[in-house]
């Protein structure tokens, strides 16, 4: 690979871009519009029910499923409509960390033996996690747990006499930062830009340059396909840096978003475009006509655009969709950026990065191999 070839082509791409008002709009103005729009819509409405993460340790004696009473308790919590319960499989010792790393501000532990103790009218203690920085959510959860506990206690009155309430709870603090929608929106929308900008344009370029004979023209010069593709990747990396800076700036200035600006973000802003420029080229190369190229591009792009944590956190989606999200490459880009920008979880960020990097190398090599600029 010759740097001079890549540099010469890079100048062509950048000039082409700067002279195209539509392209400039989509990379410089559109991000601000997106941030403003989604930030305004979702910051203003509030989130309705508070998301409550639950660890249920009260399994059936055979180890399969949860006890009826513990399940009934959680259903009753959901029925209040104040909270929305999601059960996770985490040990109580790691629970506080888990909540912190996922940006959850409230949690509940139902201990083992909950059903036995409750039916035997022995005191049983739940643990409620709240975050002092998000007092509203904490108050809502405590209120809901108190209400449901009272109802359960009342249900098992002790004969005619009064007896002590069976279900009680203690509270613990989640030491995590409180995250707002806008905090997730910034990495999400950077991911959105990393996906859409190269995908749409490379798919189009792959088919239109072939149709117009520009690839044939280039094949008669010393530039190689990998040099050409590398120059495009470098361009989109540069563009991603600019777009990300605009989005972060707009998020912070307009909505007071909280993000950690760390060098850990840089690899994602490089590897993300590397992956999607190559994927766009690959999609455009396997298609025979510009129309089918656009179709293939859309089929690949649209699910990722909505289901990878761009506009909505993946953890808010139904379990089936969450599993689907985990096969989407963009999920790992956005999750990685969430880890470095919000949760400072470098080990998970590193895993995400590695997945995207390996994917990028594979897709790049495939694209260079499959895109032909002359015919047999």
């Amino acid at each position, binding site marked *: 690979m010759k740097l*001079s*070839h890549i*540099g*010469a*082509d890079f*100048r*062509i791409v950048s*000039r*082409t871009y700067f*002279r*195209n008002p539509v392209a400039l709009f989509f990379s410089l103005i559109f991000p601000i519009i997106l941030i403003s729009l989604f930030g305004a819509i979702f910051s203003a409405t509030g989130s309705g029910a508070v998301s409550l993460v639950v660890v249920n340790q009260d399994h059936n004696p055979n180890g399969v499923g949860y006890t009826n009473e513990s399940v009934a308790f959680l259903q009753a919590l959901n029925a209040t409509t104040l909270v929305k319960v999601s059960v996770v499989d985490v040990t109580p010792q790691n629970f506080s960390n888990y909540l912190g790393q996922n940006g959850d501000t409230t949690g509940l532990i139902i201990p083992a033996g909950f059903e036995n103790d409750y039916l035997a009218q022995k005191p049983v203690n739940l643990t409620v996690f709240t975050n002092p920085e998000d007092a509203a959510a904490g108050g809502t959860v405590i209120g809901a747990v108190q209400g449901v506990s009272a109802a359960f206690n009342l249900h098992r009155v002790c004969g005619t006499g009064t007896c002590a309430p069976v279900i009680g709870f203690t509270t613990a603090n989640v030491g995590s930062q409180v995250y707002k929608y806008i905090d997730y929106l910034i990495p999400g929308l950077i991911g959105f830009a990393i996906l859409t900008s190269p995908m749409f344009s490379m798919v189009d370029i792959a088919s239109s340059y072939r149709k*117009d*004979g*520009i690839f*044939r*023209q280039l*094949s*008669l*010069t*010393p*530039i190689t396909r990998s040099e050409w593709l590398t120059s495009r990747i470098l361009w989109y990396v540069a563009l991603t840096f600019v777009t990300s800076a605009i989005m972060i700036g707009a998020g912070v200035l307009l909505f007071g978003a909280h993000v950690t600006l760390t060098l850990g973000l840089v690899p994602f802003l490089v590897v993300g475009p590397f992956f999607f420029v190559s994927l766009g080229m690959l999609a455009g190369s396997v298609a025979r006509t510009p129309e089918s190229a656009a179709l293939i591009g859309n089929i690949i792009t649209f699910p990722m655009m909505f289901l990878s944590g761009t506009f909505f956190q993946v953890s808010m989606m139904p379990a089936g969709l969450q599993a689907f999200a985990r096969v989407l490459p963009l999920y790992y880009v956005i999750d990685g950026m969430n880890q470095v920008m919000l949760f400072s979880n470098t080990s998970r960020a590193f895993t995400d990065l590695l997945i995207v990097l390996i994917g990028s190398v594979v897709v790049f090599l495939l694209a260079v191999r499959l895109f032909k600029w*002359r*015919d*047999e």
Partner: protein
Amino acid sequence: MAAAIEVDGLIKRYGSLAAVDGINFSVSPGTVFSFLGPNGAGKTTTTEILEGLRKATEGEVRVLGLDPWTEGAPLHRRIGVIPQDFRFFEKITPKEAIEYYRALFHTNVDPHDLLEKVELADKATSRFDTLSGGQKQKLGLALALTNDPEICFLDEPTTGLDPHARRAIWAVIRSLKKEGRTVFLTTHYLEEAELLADEVAIIHHGKIIASGSPTEIIAEHGLPSRMTVVGSPALASYLQMNLGAAAVVEDGKVSITLNDKHDALKILTAIEASGLPWTSFTTTHDTLDDVFVRLVGQMDEGALKTEGAK
């Protein structure tokens, strides 16, 4: 001296269709070789095989001693190509395009000089999408010259251009020859080939049906020269009687075949001696165009008859 281009038994098949059906020719260095043929005759396919853009099905092709398909990279440093209907990055100016090629080929050519040469210097900073068809083609020509090529392949470089733009391209082609470069020119303008080419090959249905210098082709396949006099049938009879030559009368014109240049003098003397009225005379010779139309026509008729007989 070794041939610049050598083609031996070249065949290109698309499925059962042979677009190029066993052709042979060679091009000497420093000459202009014109490849003629009607649309769909196999011109572009052949040209693209020579340029290394398409793979031959069978046969031997050598350009500057290299196999264009497997040795494309070294070959492309030594040849310049303008494809039919040249297109480039729309927002890029001719000056930037040449700078781009200069960087890719590692040459020191001055963009301004090159644009002067193809008469495009006044559009050096206009974007490609604002250029006219002729200007785009001139840029293609300039880019093809960026690497100081030994052979220039020009595939229908003047198709669709106005007469002025066409003449400008012709001037460049003449200067290329003067500089000692080999020019491989495909065209369907016969006049262009006749004016510029040292050697011509006419291809039809994938086969070469005539080749040689334009003069040789006309001599071999053309009709004899004729003298046409505007005059009466009586004049025709007089000439036929006195000269013993077949005189044909059509639309008030008498036409007589000239076997050599002295015949013209004899005919004029006889006309004067006849005392019959006449107004003007012309002598006509077949052009490459006439020969081309006749050859292609004969071949198509032949093909139709053969098909009809089946």
